[in-house]
C-alpha cells in the first residue's frame, strides 16, 4: 500500500512547528501504524534526514504511551483501539493521512508528535489512590465485594491514561480520566472511606492544572480506546457535589458551636 503522510514537525517546545508531507510506499496491510512510521523513519535516517519523534512503548494497546491525532481523531479511525493497535488495512490505498500531536493546554509539545502529559500524574498524586501502607493488611477475603460492583470498578479501572479524552474534548477537559479513577475507587468498599476527600482534591488539582470544563459532548467516551463510560463523570459530579454539601454542612455546624 502507498500513502501520503502529512505530519506535524516541531523541533522543540520553544520552536514553531508545521505540517510536512512525506510519501511512503510498499507498506504491508498487516503492518501496524507504528511499523509504517518505522519504515518512514528508516527512509529518513538512511537519506540523512531527521526521523519523526513519536511516543510508543508496549505496542499492544495497554501502556497508554502512544497518542497521535490521526485524520482528526485521537488514536485514528477504528473505535476501541490505541494507535499502536491500528493496522494499515484500516486505511485506503493511496490515502492521505494527517498525523498531529494531542492538542491541549495542559499537554505542551516536547518534540514533533510527543507531548508532556505529566499533568495526569499530578492529578493522580492529588488523591487517586487508597491511603494505606504496606503491611498490616487484613486477609483479602475479609470484606466481600458484590461482583457487580467489582466489575463496574474494573471497567473504570481499565483507563490507560493516554489522554485521548482530553485531546478529544473541545474544552480539553480531563473529566473522563478523573471520573474513571474516582469511580474505580469509590465503587469499592476499600476506597469508599476517603471517597469524598479524594474527589475534592482531584477536582481542585484538575482546575489548577489548566484542564477545561466538561463540554458535555461525550467526545471523550466516543474516542476512549478502552471504552470508559461518561457514567463515570456523572458519578464523579455526584460525589463532588455530595462532598461539597457535606463539608459546608459540617462547617456550618462547627461555626454554630
Amino acid at each position, binding site marked *: 500500500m502507498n500513502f501520503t503522510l502529512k505530519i506535524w514537525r516541531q523541533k522543540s517546545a520553544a520552536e514553531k512547528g508545521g505540517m510536512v508531507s512525506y510519501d511512503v510506499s510498499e507498506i504491508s496491510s498487516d503492518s501496524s501504524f507504528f511499523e509504517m512510521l518505522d519504515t518512514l523513519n528508516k527512509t529518513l535516517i538512511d537519506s540523512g534526514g531527521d526521523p519523526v519523534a513519536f511516543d510508543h512503548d508496549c505496542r499492544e494497546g495497554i*501502556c497508554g504511551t502512544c497518542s497521535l491525532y490521526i485524520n482528526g481523531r485521537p488514536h485514528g479511525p477504528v473505535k476501541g483501539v490505541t494507535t499502536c493497535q491500528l493496522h494499515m488495512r484500516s486505511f485506503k490505498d493511496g490515502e492521505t493521512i494527517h498525523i498531529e500531536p494531542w492538542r491541549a493546554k495542559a499537554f505542551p509539545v*516536547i518534540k514533533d508528535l*510527543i507531548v508532556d502529559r505529566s499533568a495526569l500524574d499530578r492529578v493522580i498524586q492529588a488523591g487517586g489512590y487508597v491511603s494505606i501502607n504496606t503491611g498490616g493488611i487484613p486477609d483479602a477475603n475479609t470484606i466481600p465485594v458484590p461482583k457487580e460492583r467489582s466489575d463496574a470498578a474494573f471497567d473504570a479501572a481499565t483507563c490507560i491514561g493516554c489522554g485521548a479524552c482530553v485531546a478529544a474534548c473541545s474544552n480539553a477537559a480531563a473529566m473522563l480520566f478523573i471520573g474513571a479513577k474516582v469511580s474505580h475507587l469509590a465503587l469499592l468498599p476499600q476506597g469508599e472511606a476517603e471517597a469524598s476527600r479524594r474527589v475534592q482534591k482531584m477536582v481542585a488539582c484538575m482546575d489548577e492544572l489548566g484542564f477545561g470544563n466538561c463540554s458535555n459532548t461525550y467526545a471523550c467516551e466516543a474516542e476512549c480506546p478502552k471504552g470508559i463510560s461518561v457514567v463515570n463523570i456523572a458519578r464523579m459530579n455526584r460525589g463532588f457535589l455530595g462532598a461539597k454539601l457535606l463539608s459546608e454542612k459540617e462547617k456550618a455546624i462547627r461555626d454554630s458551636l
Partner: protein
Amino acid sequence: MTSLNAKIPDGPLAEKWTAYKSGCKLVNPNNKRKLDIIVVGTGLAGASAAASLGQLGYNVKVFCYQDTPRRAHSIAAQGGINAAKNYANDGDSAYRLFYDTIKGGDYRAREANVYRLAEVSNQIIDLCVAQGVPFAREYGGLLTNRSFGGAQVSRTFYARGQTGQQLLLGAYGALSRQIAEGNVTLYNRRDVLDMVLVDGKARGIIARNLVTGEIERHAAHAVVLANGGYGNVFFLSTNAMGSNVTPAWSAYRKGAMFANPSFTQIHPTCIPVHGDFQSKLTLMSESLRNDGRIWVPAKKKDVERLRHKDIKPADIPEEDRDYYLERRYPAFGNLVPRDVASRAAKERCDAGFGVGSTGMAVYLDFADAIKRKGHDTIDALYGNLFQMYEQIVAESPYETPMMIYPAVHYTMGGLWVDYELMTSIPGLYAIGECNFSDHGANRLGASALMQGLADGYFVLPYTIGNYLSAEIHTPRFDPSSSEFTIAADGVTDRLKRLMNTEGKESVDHFHRRLGKIMWEYCGMARNEHGLGEALYLITELRQEFSRGVRIPGGLNEYNPELEKACRVADFIDLGELMVRDALQRKESCGGHFREESQTSDGEALRNDDKFAFVGAWEYRGRDATAQLHREELQFNAIKLSQRSYK
C-alpha cells in the same frame, strides 16, 4: 577474586525468613530521613519498592525512561498472580507453591529465596485488594482463582486479562501518594547509563535527561535496580520497545556479577511472526491454555490443503488432529510449563506440521470450550484477549482457532543477588525481573508479578535496612566528587563516540541482525556448533556497529535514535555473554535446551552432578573474556528428580 556468598540464614527452611526478620538490623525513623535511596525502574518491583521505602521514611529518588511510572512494562502482564491462599480448598500451601516453583524452574533456583517468595505471596494479595485492585470475584463477593501452567491447584488471582495493569496501577497509586507526601521524587524520561561507586560501594548513578539530553549525577546511600528483563536482545519479543538491559549492564561493567544470562523464557502462546517490517510480538495469555486445546494436523496432506486454503481448520476431523500436548503429557495436557509447551510446538513445526502462511504456527482452539461453557462464559474469561487477537490478525477466535507460536517473553537470568537481594557490589540491589533469583531455568506462569511485588513490598524494605543501619553516620554524598565526574565524563564520551560514528545504517538494522543471531543460535534449541558460530557473528556485528551506525540529531536534545543506540550497544555485549553461558552449560534445563543433552524421547536432560549451580559471570574488561563463578545449589527440602509432566 570476588566470592559468592548467598548469605542464606541458618535454620529450617520454613523459618529462615522469620529468623532473618527478627535478627536484621533496623534504622530508626529519624535516621531514615537522612538516608537517600535511588530506585531505577517503576514496574511492579520498582514502584512497590519506592513506595514502601518512601513510606518507611527514607528519602527516595525514582527513575523511569517512560513519561510516567504507570507505563512500565509490568502493565502488559495479562494472566495473573500466584499466591498460596488455598481459597480453592484444593490442598495448596506455601510449601506446594515453593515446590512447584522450584520444580518448574528445573531445580536451578535457590531453595531459601523461593520459599520466602511463596511465604510472602499471600500478603501481596491482601495488600493489592486493599489498594483497590479489582481482582475477579464470585457472586458471593469473595475472590476467585484459576489454574495456570505447571500447577495442579488453582492459585492464580486475576483481573480479566489485565492483571499486570491493575497491579501496577495499585503500586503506581501507592507511589503517587509518596510523591505527593514528598518522600519520593520522580525523575521521568531518564535513561540510567552508569553506576557510581565510591570506595567499592554503590553511591549513585549517571542519568541522561531524555528531553534535554543533559547528563545528570544523582548520589545516594544505596541504589536499587528494578529495570526489568532483557528479552529485547532478541529484537522481536513481547517486551515493550524501550525495555532494556542498560542499567543492569552498567552495574555488570562496574563489577556486579551477572547470573545465568542464557536462561530465557520462550512463551508458547504468542501471535506468530508475519513479516520483515515487524517490530514486536504480542503475547496471548497462558490462561488461554485452560480452555484452549493446542493441535496441528496429523497428516501432511492436510497441512498442504490448509496452506492453499482448500480447507479450513474446522474441516479437519477429530481423528486427523494431533493434540500433541495431550498426547505427550497426559497428566498436565495443555497445562504443561512454558518451556515444555514451546519446545513441543517447535518440534511439530520443524517436522513439517506447522500451520499458517509461514508454517511456523500451531492452533489454539476454543471450539470445545465454547460448546461446553457457552459463548458468554468464554467472553467473560478471555474477551479482551480475543479482541486483541482479532485486531492484529483480522480473524475471530470465536469462529476459527487462534494461530500461535513461541516468542521471547521473560528472562530468568539477571544480576546475581544474595538472600538480601544485594548484588556483588555492596549497596547495590537488584529486584524483580532484573535479578536472577527465583525462577531457576524456567519461570511458571503468574509468578513474575508475584516476585516483583514480593521483592518490592515485602523483602527489600527489610533487607536494605540491614545494610543502611551501618550508613547512618555517612553524610550525603557530593555528586561533584571525582568518582561522579569520572563516571559522567565516561558516559559523555561514550555518547559522543556513538554520535560521531559516521556510518550508514540505522540502529534498528543492527538490532534486527543481533536478534536473528540470538534467535537462531541461542533460542529454543542450542548446540555447541551453533553457539560457536554465534560468538563469531556477534564479534563481527559489534565491529560493524561501532563503524557503521548512523545516529541523526544531536546530543543535547530529544533523540530516540541515540537512546536506542546505547541500548543496542549493551545488548550486543549481553548477547555474547548469553552465548558464553549457554556454551558452558552442557546440560538441558528449563528454557535452556542443549540438543546434545536430551532423553531418547526428546525431553530435556539435566545433569545435576555437574551443573547444579548458578553460573555468575564477572566482567574483566572490554578485551578480556568474562570469568565464570559457581554458586553451588544446595537442595535440602527437595529431592531432585527428572521433571516429568507425563
